[in-house]
Structure formats: C-alpha cells, structure tokens
C-alpha cells in the first residue's frame, strides 16, 4: 500500500475545501437554512405533523440527504475531473499508485467533506427544530455509507465527463429530481396510488426512508429494504469503477 500517495491525494482534496469554503460549506448551509424557513415554517404551519413527527423535524433527514448526495457527487466528480481538465492527471497515471489507492484518496476525501457538511447541517437544524436521533449508530451508518456510495458515483461521473456540462448534467437533471421526489418533504403515503408506485423505482426514496427511520423510527419501507437498495447501488458503483480502471475508459489512451 502506497500510504503516502493516499495521504497526498486526501490532503490535496481536503485543502481544496479550505480554499473554496464558501462553495463547499457555507453555500449548502445557507440553502438548507432557507429550506427550513420556507418549508419548515411556511408549510409547516399548515402541515403540523406527519406520522407523529412535526413537519419541521420530519424534513430534516431528507434535507441532510439532499446535501449529502449532491455534495458527495460534486466533490468527487470535480476532484477527478479537474486533473483531467488541466492535464495534471499525467502525474497520477505515472505514479506508483494502484486504482484502489487512487479511489481511497479521492472518494475518502469527498466522503469526508460531505459527512462534515451533513453534520454541520444537522447542527444547524437544531436551531430551527427540536431533534431526536432514536438510533445514532444507524444514523451514522446511513450517513457514511451514502457518502461513500455517492462519492463513488461522483467519481464515475467525473471520469465519464469530458466537459463541464456533462459534469453538471447528472446531478442537476437526475439526482436533484430523485431527491425531491424521494420523500424529502413528504411521506410517500400522502401521494396518490399511481405516484406511490412510481416512487418505488426511485433509489433515493429508500435512502431517505432508512435515514429518517434512524431519527424517528418512522419509515415508508423497512430498514432491511433500505439497506439492500443502498448495498446494491454501492455494488453497482464498485463494479463500474473496477471496469473503468481495468479498461482505462476516459483516462488512458
């Protein structure tokens, strides 16, 4: 194991967060606070409770997931896309590092950053709504697993993208709608039957459901189902990354 290389990549990526603190931390915190104000206060005054949980508190896990998913993808995709864009990837390709070590550095840093952000948002949420975490272990488990899985997914997007538009297209037109339609702001049981069926095909719905269960023990699907869907998506990302490194897709000529 080239641990110095892993540390170098990890530190390099973490240092980028410091340089872009507004974009990386402050901006998502402000956006999430606005969600609390708009959805929690304005709509929350009309919808008082969902499954016995106050509306403001109900949306907290979904909002954390929204930031976690988008930031994991954004951090990892930018992390690997930038060396490709600037040409500095030559150094990575000519270094004595394995694919696993490269992943460990980039995905590790991206996941760390998004977990830190999620924890900051969780702390921020405390200022707006009273929060309880019924199962802290499962909460952290979902947090870490989701961050790793979606950082891997972001890494794949960063490799696939050959321009800035492609880098943005999946997070904007796929991930954000999936999060919004995955039960961030409502319980699926509130939807008409047709849309309830459609929601069953949204993988993010299972993540939010499982994560919300760790807070309030209320969920649209069982914990096991959420766990299986997340594990399945993680396995898919790992297989895709393995294929990318073996084939050299979009990295080597």
């Amino acid at each position, binding site marked *: 194991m080239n641990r*110095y290389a892993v540390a*170098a990549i990890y530190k390099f990526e973490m240092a980028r967060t410091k340089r872009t603190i507004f974009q990386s931390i402050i901006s998502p915190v402000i956006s999430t606070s606005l969600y609390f104000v708009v959805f929690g206060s304005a709509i929350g005054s009309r919808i008082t409770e969902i499954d016995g949980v106050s509306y403001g508190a109900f949306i907290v896990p979904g909002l954390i997931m929204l930031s976690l998913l988008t930031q994991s993808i954004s951090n990892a995709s930018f992390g690997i896309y930038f060396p490709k864009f*600037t*040409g*500095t990837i*030559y*150094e990575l390709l*000519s270094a*004595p590092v394995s694919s696993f070590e490269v992943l460990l550095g980039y995905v590790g840093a991206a996941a760390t950053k998004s977990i830190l952000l999620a924890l900051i948002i969780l702390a921020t949420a405390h200022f707006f709504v009273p929060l309880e975490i019924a199962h802290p272990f499962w909460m952290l488990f979902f947090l870490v697993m989701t961050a790793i899985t979606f950082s891997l997914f972001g890494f794949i997007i960063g490799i696939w993208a050959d321009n800035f538009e492609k880098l943005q297209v999946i997070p904007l037109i796929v991930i954000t709608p999936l999060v919004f339609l995955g039960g961030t702001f409502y319980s699926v049981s509130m939807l008409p039957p047709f849309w309830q069926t459609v929601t069953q095909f949204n993988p993010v719905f299972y993540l939010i459901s499982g994560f919300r269960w760790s807070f309030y023990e209320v969920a649209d699907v069982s914990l096991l189902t959420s766990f299986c869907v997340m594990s399945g998506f993680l396995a898919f990302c790992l297989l895709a990354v393995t294929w990318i490194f073996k084939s050299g897709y979009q990295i080597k000529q």
Partner: protein
Amino acid sequence: MQPIIQITDVNKVYAGGFQALNNINLSIKPAEIFALLGPNGAGKTTLISAICGIVDATSGQITVDGKDIVTGYRHTRSLIGLVPQELTTDAFETVWTTVSFSRGLFGKKPNPAFIEKTLKSLSLWDKKDNKMIELSGGMKRRVMIAKALSHEPAILFLDEPTAGVDVELRKDMWQLVRELRNDGVTIILTTHYIEEAEEIADRIGVIKNGQLILVEDKIALMNQLGKKQLILDLKEPLIEIPAQLTDFNLQLQNEGMQLIYSYDTTDEHTGISALLQQLSVAAIAFKDIKTDQSSLEDIFVSLVREKT
C-alpha cells in the same frame, strides 16, 4: 552493463487506427543522457508516455531496472520522474504544496529539507509560497522539474524541457541536467533544439513516423556523417573547374567566386596540401580560406529527408 530501460518490439496503435509507434527497440544505459529527436508527431511523446505508464503499448515489452512496467509498475514508476511537454499545473496551489504533493504521490515520506534543497537548486526558493498562477512560463517549467525531482528519481524524462524558455534558463537547465547525470541519474530528453542535443546528449535517437530510424553515439554520429568543407574565396571568378583539379571533390559556387572542397575528416590524407599545391600550379589565387563542418542539425535534416 544491464540497461536501465529496455524497449522490445513496442507498437502503439491509437483507437482511431493511427500507429504512433512502430516496432520500437531501444536500450538506455544507466546514467547516460539520451536525446530523442524527431519532427512533430513523430512519436516522441507517445514513447515516453508508454514507458511512464500514461498510455498502454498495443504490443511489445518495456522493462525498467529489469522489471516489467505493467507487472512491476510500483518499482518502475517509483524510479521515474517526468517533466511533460505542456505546462500542466494546479493554478491555485503554491509551489511548495505542489512539489510536496508529487513527492507523496510517488510514495516518498515527507522530507521538507529535500524539497527545500530542490527548490533552491532550481532558484525557486523565494517563490515557494507563490501560487502557480502567479509564475511566469519559465518559472512554471522549473516547478515542473522540481515536481519530477521531488521523489529522487533514478531516471528523468524531459519532454521538450526548454521549449519557450529564454537562453539563460536553457543554459541553467543544461547545467542541471549535467549535474544530475553526474549524480547517476539517467536522462532521456526529447527536443526540437538540435543544439540542445549537440550540447548535452551522450547518445542520439531519431524517430520518424513512429519508427526509430537511428540510434548512435553523438560523437560517432557526427564523425560518421559529418562532412567537412574547405571554402576558398577566389580573387577572380572561374567559369569551370580546371582540368588539373578534376581529381578533387570540388564544386564552384557564388558565380564562380567560391571553390568548395569536401573531404572526410577521418581520412589520414585529406588532400588539402595537394589541392593547395595544384591551385598554385594552376595560378588560381584566393583571398580567403575557411572550413565548415556539418552540424547535428544538418545531419538530422538530411536523415529525416532521406527516410521520407
């Protein structure tokens, strides 16, 4: 002596079908300076990239320090430092962090003293806290070299190292290359500047259309292919070469005002004395005399044209 790099039957065909390398065979000796010359698109950068692992060879084998670059990549890559042709840098990183990053990436424990020494040797110490974006092109080139040297490589690849740098910096770099070689580092450089190869290389390879058309010791190459000429500026023009001088390899130029005698420097008898004697007999007077030897550039141009 075991070669430090051994390239055997290497071919590279890109996805579009373009053959960038065509059956390359080459051995690089330890601690030599090898210059790879060739026109644009000849395959110089592809060859370097294949050795460093940036592109995969389609067929053939490359070994570094006796180890295959695919199966033994950890060992082979840790021995190599690469200065690429393009100034590809992280614009917002400082000189210190980018050079330290390279050392870590190549598996070396942090060593601030070594990084300091490297930056000082490249006159970069006072720029260590500057962001890359703030540096001039020449300074960025020095940083690229510092990054390549940061992990103390045994082999250094310099892909067009002095492209776009001023004369002073070019000479500094030549000096650095010589010092590195004296420390036992093997250096492979590609260049468009023939004078660069002439100045610092021990051996020269010429590549064209993906084929290595020549590999030769620089001095031997110049002796072997270098022609020397004796040029006589005449007082009166000649219409033709007089009959008594036809045995000499002579040419008339500049409307008969210059007589050019080509000879082989390696011959024991160059024929110069005999020629001068015959000129005197033929009463051909000259006002000036000079000699000219073909440069590596002339040799390179003639080789590339010959093989076209």
